[in-house]
């Protein structure tokens, strides 16, 4: 049954969810769970918090899907729910952790020299600290851009601002990261030359 539901197109699935079909809810969850969870995790930096955010998002989605009129794309509507849940959690908890889980294990490669590893770690620490210190809207823009690969227009639609605002927020973050990491990049370049 679930396989059959999974084969439905997005629109049919949404229609089935509106009718209250539990299998359709499950199929919709399977379709979007990774995207929702990824945004939540990259924004909050904490697996437990990310699960709470994802849970809240899907519960809200299932209870309000009847009000989805199709004026915007379903994905945009869903992303807006995730973004709002992330912001609500930030307001409630005030204890967001640094962004990246298991960062050291990702960066660590068997062939890396001790200096390479040190530089990589230093880069990740700097990156982590800059992103963790960003205000919520800037952090969300960077997560939607790099975790989901969304365009400026798509991010603008989700965040309820102009594409120009998205561009300037990203630019600000890039400049900040560039300044903080410039020294390390120089060292890295010299080392690899």
């Amino acid at each position, binding site marked *: 049954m679930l396989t059959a539901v999974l084969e439905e197109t997005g629109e049919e699935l949404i229609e089935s969810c509106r009718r209250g079909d539990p299998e359709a809810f*499950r199929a919709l*969850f399977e379709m979007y*769970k*990774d*995207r*929702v*969870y*990824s945004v939540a*995790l*990259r924004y909050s930096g904490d*697996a437990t918090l990310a*699960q709470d955010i*994802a*849970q809240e998002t*899907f*519960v809200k989605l*299932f209870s309000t899907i009847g009000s989805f009129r199709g004026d915007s794309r379903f994905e945009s509507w869903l992303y807006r729910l995730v973004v709002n849940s992330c912001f609500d959690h930030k307001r409630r908890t005030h204890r967001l952790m640094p*962004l*990246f889980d298991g*960062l050291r294990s*990702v960066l660590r490669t068997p062939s890396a020299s001790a200096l390479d590893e040190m530089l990589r770690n230093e*880069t*990740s620490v700097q*990156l*982590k600290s800059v992103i963790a210190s960003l205000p919520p809207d800037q952090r969300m823009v*960077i*997560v939607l851009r*790099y*975790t*989901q690969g969304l365009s400026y227009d798509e991010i603008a639609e989700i965040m309820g601002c102009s594409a120009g605002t998205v561009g300037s927020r990203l630019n600000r973050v*890039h400049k900040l*990261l*560039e300044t903080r*990491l410039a020294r390390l*990049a120089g060292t*890295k370049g010299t080392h690899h030359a």
Partner: protein
Amino acid sequence: MPDYLERELERHLAPVRAPETLWKKIDQKRHAPVTWNPGRRLIFSPALALIVLTVAAGAAWRARDITPVAPSASVKTTDSCPMCHATSSGQRIP
């Protein structure tokens, strides 16, 4: 923005897979019975009722003490004032 920074961001913010337990968590939350939490309401209702009762009782007590002001016997309400009780012809208004 330098390429290395773009690459670092893409790598560090890469998407992840949702944990298998997530659906269970969501399903439990969806089917959890809606519980009425009367705690706050129950604490505040008697307190509020007590305050309203005290204010009402106080107002009633004050109202009981207030006696209507009787017109003073010393004030004469005669028509003896020529400013008010005279016509333009000098005749007094009866």
